[in-house]
């Protein structure tokens, strides 16, 4: 048995490496947890068992074979072994990064998801040639949640407070019982971190809610007052509805009411954020249009397809650097700007320059271009959608408290939208190109007379608008499908935003986008997603009748039709 001769000297060094790797992995694992009960398995390792190397090896190998329930049993047994290698292995299994050969005596390996494997038993690096026959150890939901519970009890004594906090919260979510309380009591004695101690107190209080004595229950309710955790709420709700003691019932109801008050305030915040986030997507997709349409008077129906190009660029960049997903966006943004910008300039030089002053004709011609670009995408990239990966730092959410969390990708896109907006504003207001753009759009003949190359400015302006559409495509690739139909989904909304905000006014576009986003999100809970969209469109049509030039109409000569 080739794995059974661990080199103990080297092993310890690598263990540290492994541990640190897995700790970070387990932080992520624990991060990804929320609520609800799961069949808790009895996992209390009341006393440390003496580990013998053969037993450990056999168990680890058994972990990769046989039926799922059997393997769950094995994992439980493994958890009872007092061995530092256990946690990384179980974490890897739970994460789906445990690999094994298909054989009687398999090689078991942990992957770092970047193509590197280390032997799970001795921590040795496995060369790529040997990694070939490794297959991921399959695992299903039931087992995943069992392992999660198991890991919680194992991680309770982790060095990092965050990991311990998650472990306690996990235990609460799985439902507290005698065994977990015993474990937690043990932990509480030595726990230095206040957050973890608070969580443990909550767990005790939840346990006490089940007590026979009414006074104990009332005390527990007092402890739980103001807590935003879901488990607390559902436990209190249960008491408030079903408790035998009327006084306890009342107390629970009071506690619940105070919690609900806090929650409704957070929900409002959440809804506003949802609205702003939708608004930022609208802003990104409309802002390029507000240049080409607002400043140049060109109705660019191919705008959506320029976004599509940006999204495809993101995909191509990820294909070129498959191991650098985290940084791929940094490359994708400028590339998308350049590619979409160049396509835009080509469209301007090839078609649009013959149609200046005939906005309705530009509409038809660019619509034709949009059809061609769509079909080109279908021919080049196939009609299937392409999978753009979300970098690690874009996934997950910023947890402010148990009822309010903001997803990172939405947050970054919101910030990104504002950055693009202000950058564009700065370009138009502070740079010489911006000056020329404004000059040409206000008075073409005069601008030419003072030496501005109007046709060059036209091409650059259109390129700028198109490039921004490309950047918007990068952002959209992080939210939705990357496929030939991407552009069509946004084009009508983008036009609505520009018209609503007022043509030729960047601030109008900002206000319009955010306004529409928030209105939509506030209508949605009452009207449903479909009707909300219809209502927004109807409101918009009515608004345009009232103010045909949008919220911020252009003033002065340029406004004359």
């Amino acid at each position: 048995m080739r794995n059974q001769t661990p080199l103990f000297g080297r092993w310890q060094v690598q263990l540290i490496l492994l541990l640190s790797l897995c700790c970070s992995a387990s932080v992520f694992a624990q991060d990804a947890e929320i609520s609800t009960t799961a069949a808790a398995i009895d996992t209390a390792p009341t006393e440390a068992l003496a580990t013998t190397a053969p037993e450990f090896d056999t168990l680890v190998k058994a972990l990769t074979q046989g039926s799922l329930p059997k393997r769950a049993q094995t994992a439980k047994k493994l958890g009872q072994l007092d061995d530092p290698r256990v946690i990384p292995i179980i974490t890897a299994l739970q994460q789906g990064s445990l690999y094994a050969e298909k054989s009687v005596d398999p090689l078991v390996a942990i992957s770092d998801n970047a193509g590197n494997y280390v032997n799970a038993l001795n921590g040795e690096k496995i060369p790529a040639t040997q990694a070939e026959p490794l297959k991921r150890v399959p695992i299903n939901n039931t087992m995943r949640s069992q392992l999660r519970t198991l890991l919680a009890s194992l991680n309770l004594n982790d060095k990092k407070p965050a990991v311990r906090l998650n472990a306690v919260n996990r235990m609460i979510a799985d439902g507290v019982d005698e065994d977990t309380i015993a474990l937690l009591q043990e932990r509480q004695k030595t726990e230095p971190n206040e957050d973890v101690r608070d969580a443990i107190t909550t767990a005790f209080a939840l346990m006490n809610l089940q007590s026979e004595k009414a006074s104990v229950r009332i005390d527990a309710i007092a402890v739980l007052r103001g807590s935003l955790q879901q488990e607390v709420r559902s436990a209190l709700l249960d008491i408030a509805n079903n408790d035998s003691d009327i006084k306890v019932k009342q107390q629970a109801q009071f506690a619940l009411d105070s919690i609900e008050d806090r929650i409704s305030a957070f929900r409002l915040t959440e809804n506003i954020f949802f609205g702003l986030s939708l608004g930022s997507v609208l802003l990104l997709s409309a802002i390029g249009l507000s240049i080409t349409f607002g400043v140049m008077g060109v109705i660019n129906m191919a705008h959506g397809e320029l976004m599509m190009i940006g999204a495809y660029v993101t995909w191509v960049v990820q294909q070129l650097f498959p191991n650098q997903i985290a940084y791929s966006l940094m490359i994708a943004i400028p590339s998308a700007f350049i590619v979409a910008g160049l396509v835009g300039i080509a469209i301007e030089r090839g078609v649009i320059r013959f149609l200046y002053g005939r906005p309705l004709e530009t509409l038809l011609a660019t619509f034709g271009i949009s059809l061609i670009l769509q079909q080109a995408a279908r021919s080049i990239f196939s009609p299937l959608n392409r999978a753009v990966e979300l970098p690690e730092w874009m996934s997950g959410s910023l947890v402010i408290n148990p009822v309010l969390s903001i997803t990172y990708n939405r947050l970054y896109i919101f910030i990104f939208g504002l950055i693009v907006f202000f950058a564009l504003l700065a370009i138009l207001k502070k740079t010489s190109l911006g000056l020329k753009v404004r000059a040409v759009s206000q008075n073409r003949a005069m601008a030419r007379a003072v030496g501005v190359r109007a046709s060059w400015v036209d091409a650059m302006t259109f390129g700028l608008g198109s490039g921004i559409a490309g950047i918007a495509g990068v952002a959209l690739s992080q939210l939705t499908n990357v496929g030939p139909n991407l552009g069509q989904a946004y084009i009508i909304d983008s036009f609505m935003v520009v018209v609503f905000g007022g043509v030729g006014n960047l601030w109008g576009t900002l206000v319009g986008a955010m306004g529409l986003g928030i209105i939509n999100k506030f209508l949605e809970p009452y009207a449903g997603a479909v009707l909300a969209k219809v209502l927004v469109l109807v409101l918009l049509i009515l608004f345009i009748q009232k103010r045909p030039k949008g919220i911020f109409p252009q003033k002065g000569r340029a406004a004359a039709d």
Partner: protein
Amino acid sequence: MKLKKIAKHVGALGIACGLSIASFSAAAADTIKVGVLHSLSGTMAISETTLKDTMLMLIEEQNKKGGLLGKKLEAVVVDPASNWPLFAEKTRELLTKDKVAAIFGCWTSVSRKSVLPVIEELNGVLFYPVQYEGEESSRNVFYTGAAPNQQAIPAVDYLMKDMKVKRWVLAGTDYVYPRTTNKILEAYLMAKGVAKEDIMINYTPFGHSDWQNIVSDIKRFGSAGKKTAVVSTINGDANVPFYRELGNQKVTAEDIPVVAFSVGEEELSGIDTKPLVGHLAAWNYFMSEDNPANAAFIKQWKAFIKNDKRVTNDPMEAHYIGFNMWVKAVEKAGTTDTDKVVDAIIGIEAPNLTGGMSKMLPNHHITKPVLIGEIQEDGQFLTVSQTDGLVPGDAWSDFLEGSKDLESDWIKLKCGNYNTKTKKCLGAAAAQ
């Protein structure tokens, strides 16, 4: 002078028209034509192009085996361009101009509904390969995809029994398939004792991309202390943003599993699967099925499409079964004549790709195994549950008010919607 010139042009146009009309009637008699009616452009191209290729592969394969009735098969591919009236027009074209022996095609329910009157009028044969809402049984259509009792109900059973789910979110795109499926599921769940307040139903428009508050609602709905699951009939493009939002709002499969009826291997190949791992799907076939027939099919497909990364999926298997059934029926009948084939095909068995034999039933649906799978990171499914034996497709759901008394049997009753209470064959479907 000028009038003459115009007249000349017009004349040329007329001749061109005449020629094309004349060419319509010239049909070669030495091949058997098979119509392939799948959108190759427009919004549905994403799903349907693959099925067109599947049909071309199957026809090529059959020709290698020596064709059918001593003749070669010839595929007639048309593009209805995701445009529903165009589906009807193309069907008419296939049946009257090309005189195809059978049509394999359609994906969406609306395209099938659009084709239906034409195919009945001209007495053609259509094989429809996609899971659908049921509530239909036409003499001229064979439904090789799953009826609701072959997909939705076993999936819910699995969640109820194995995962102990007590609270249900029925989320779907607002069109007929989700509406009907959810109606059936709602009735089914209530019959199983689920309270009304434990069922949340939500509809979204096609291509919905902003799922923030819906996911947040689902999360809230799932935090009531009872195990919650989402039954998703969300269509195509809306799935990516939906699963991304789930992942980002940290709704994991262990907490709130999502079981989808429209997410298969092909859809997954265009999705970053990380946030989906552990979520479920119910189908009658998974590419990961381990048996020789499936391995051969996958190998053949990859060789045909010349791409080692392409995946196979459930509707492809449905075409595989349907095509083989049709071939056997034509051989049995000794002709491609619709009336004879329609009679001959009932009871015909053809191998499916999960290692069994599917059988064509008198109600024009087939028997299929139902598989529940968990999505893995590589975009494949890990089968976690499988029905014992094959489930016969039921055209009329037993859980809907209007259809529970209806029965379809084209052999004994010669009727697609026979009312067992009034003992009458309803409507015009009682042809013959």
